[in-house]
């Protein structure tokens, strides 16, 4: 009798452990006390999970012709003003070193700028129907994690005789030295955010159709990514979509870039629109 009771008790535990997260057919952002920007935060346990199947981007050139990442598991939290998404996906290779013919792991969340009955085109929006994008990249994460912003971090055996900004006549850290450095880094002189060390591994952008991506001025973008045993787990934090409430849904789409498959820009795995619902605090 006792043995039977023990077996029953054990099986209950096993069942509850293997039950895993609640699965949803839409992405549901549940309330959290504070904005959550780390993948390991316990608050994520309260969020249901949506498994989004990924499709190849084969609508606009250059297209991705061969599928790579199959799916991304998504959870979402919100605290009124901000919304955080946690993306989990399988990726056997860590691609976080930029270089010629080398591409980087990355992910993005896309949400229409306005809550509309007819959402914009899921492929980067369309003219007059902008979308907001929050984008994370593995090399930016490495930079935030402390990788130095120099050529030896990318090529440990590189030997460089001399850079003009190292001339003896230029005092280290001086304005003249910075100016000399910038002469050979026009992207930096233009304020291109691809350059240099970063505070966050995430950037905010806007788009109104393929090829129109531009910096999302004034849009919040925070987050962090960690390498898991099987792939990446990345949190992307942005402002909660304007007009979204427990009564009104909007849309969300996701994209994953697999660096080892030379995925970059429009060569990516992506979803169509998925309903995004908000659960308010009780």
């Amino acid at each position: 009798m006792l043995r039977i009771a023990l077996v029953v008790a054990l099986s209950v535990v096993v069942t509850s452990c293997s039950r895993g997260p609640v699965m949803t057919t839409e992405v549901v952002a549940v309330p959290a006390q504070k904005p959550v920007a780390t993948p390991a935060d316990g608050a994520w346990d309260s969020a249901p999970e949506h498994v989004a199947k990924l499709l190849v981007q084969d609508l606009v050139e250059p297209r991705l012709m061969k599928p790579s990442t199959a799916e991304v598991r998504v959870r979402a939290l919100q605290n009124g003003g901000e919304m955080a998404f946690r993306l989990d996906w399988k990726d056997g290779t860590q691609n976080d070193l930029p270089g010629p013919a080398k591409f980087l792991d990355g992910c993005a969340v896309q949400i229409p700028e306005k809550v509309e009955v007819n959402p914009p085109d899921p492929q980067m929006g369309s003219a007059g129907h902008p979308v907001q994008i929050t984008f994370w990249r593995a090399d930016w994460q490495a930079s935030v994690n402390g990788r130095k912003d120099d050529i030896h971090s990318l090529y440990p055996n590189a030997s460089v005789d001399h850079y003009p900004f190292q001339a003896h006549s230029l005092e280290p850290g001086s304005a003249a030295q910075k100016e000399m450095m910038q002469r050979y880094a026009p992207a930096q002189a233009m304020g291109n955010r691809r350059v240099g060390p970063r505070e966050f591994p995430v950037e905010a952008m806007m788009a109104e159709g393929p090829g129109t991506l531009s910096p999302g001025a004034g849009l919040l973008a925070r987050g962090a990514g960690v390498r898991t045993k099987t792939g990446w787990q990345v949190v992307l934090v942005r402002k909660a979509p304007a007009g979204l409430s427990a009564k009104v849904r909007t849309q969300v789409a996701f994209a994953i870039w697999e660096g080892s498959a030379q995925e970059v820009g429009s060569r990516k795995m992506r979803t169509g629109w998925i309903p995004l619902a908000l659960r308010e605090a009780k």
Partner: protein
Amino acid sequence: MARVNNWQLGREMSYWYPESRPQRQFAAVFDTNKCIACQTCTLACKTTWTSGRGQEYMLWNNVESKPYGFYPLAWDLKLLEMLNGGAWNGNKYEGQTIFESAPAGERVLGWRPEQQDYAYPNVGEDDCAGQVDKGAGMMSLPHMNWFFYLARICNHCTYPACLASCPRGSIYKRPEDGIVLVDQGRCRGYQECVKGCPYKKVFFNPMTGTSEKCIACYPKMEQGIQPQCFVNCIGKIRLAGYISKPGQERAENPIDYLVRIRKIALPLFPQFGLEPNVYYIPPIHVPLSFSRQLFGPGADEAVKAYRNAANDADLSSLLCLFGSSEQVMTRWSRQGDLVSGLDDKGSTLVRVPRNEPVFTRPAYDKLYQITRTNCP
């Protein structure tokens, strides 16, 4: 895809954007017969534009020994193979261009060099270990004992594949001079242009995260001064200027005269379909079958005309203007045995003799009663 006219192919072709020729088109003529591979041009460019972080491997100007030299490795062979050679019928190209043979999902037919493909510019390219009549002894390949130097910069193509490949429209062709530039503020480093440019003249900079390329020293060209690799050229092989629109060529424009009128300077791999604007006087000592593959069906006639240049007062005079002035000579004229380079307004910039006077210095100097030799 739009239908556009490519005069180098003798036919229309497909291109990603409609035909839109600039007001004038930056162009250059390189005389391969005079290049000594000193690489002064390479260094002039390197010190001026690519001495920064992430640019270490970049050579916007490079000089490679053909047929066995490449930068990056096998850049031309790979594409020729992908294009299946490409066939000419007289002066008409009947094969496919890289735009016409773009595979599904791509804007152009291209390939991406690996990092190590950039690692050995000019290493061992012209090490010829055999006897001239027996081929190089060190290789089992049919390595012929001839070679020549091919100096290469961006061709500032009329139909740039880099521009067509960029999904962001970050690459533009200046309407005023046809110079092709990457907008460094807009580029997101997708490297599509690196894949698309058949000449491999766009480079990804891992430190700035953007792609960078030859800018034809446009700040100098705007001042009427030729680019760094031109004015520093030891062999005086280069002449920069502007080529007129097809059908509007003028004999007084040195580039028009050499390219369109005398047809002595030819585009590099015209069969790719980009209408490149650096024109080469083909080497005269190289098998013509090879020159035809590189420079198209005009190679035979160009070599013939060049070989005859000594008897051709106009041609030999104009060739003397190469490397004679720092300034851009958009016009030229010959007065007997003198040739002048002029600017747009018709002012003379430089005047040089067609035949340099020759002095023979006797080995024994009677005045000082000493023997001079040229070598120590």
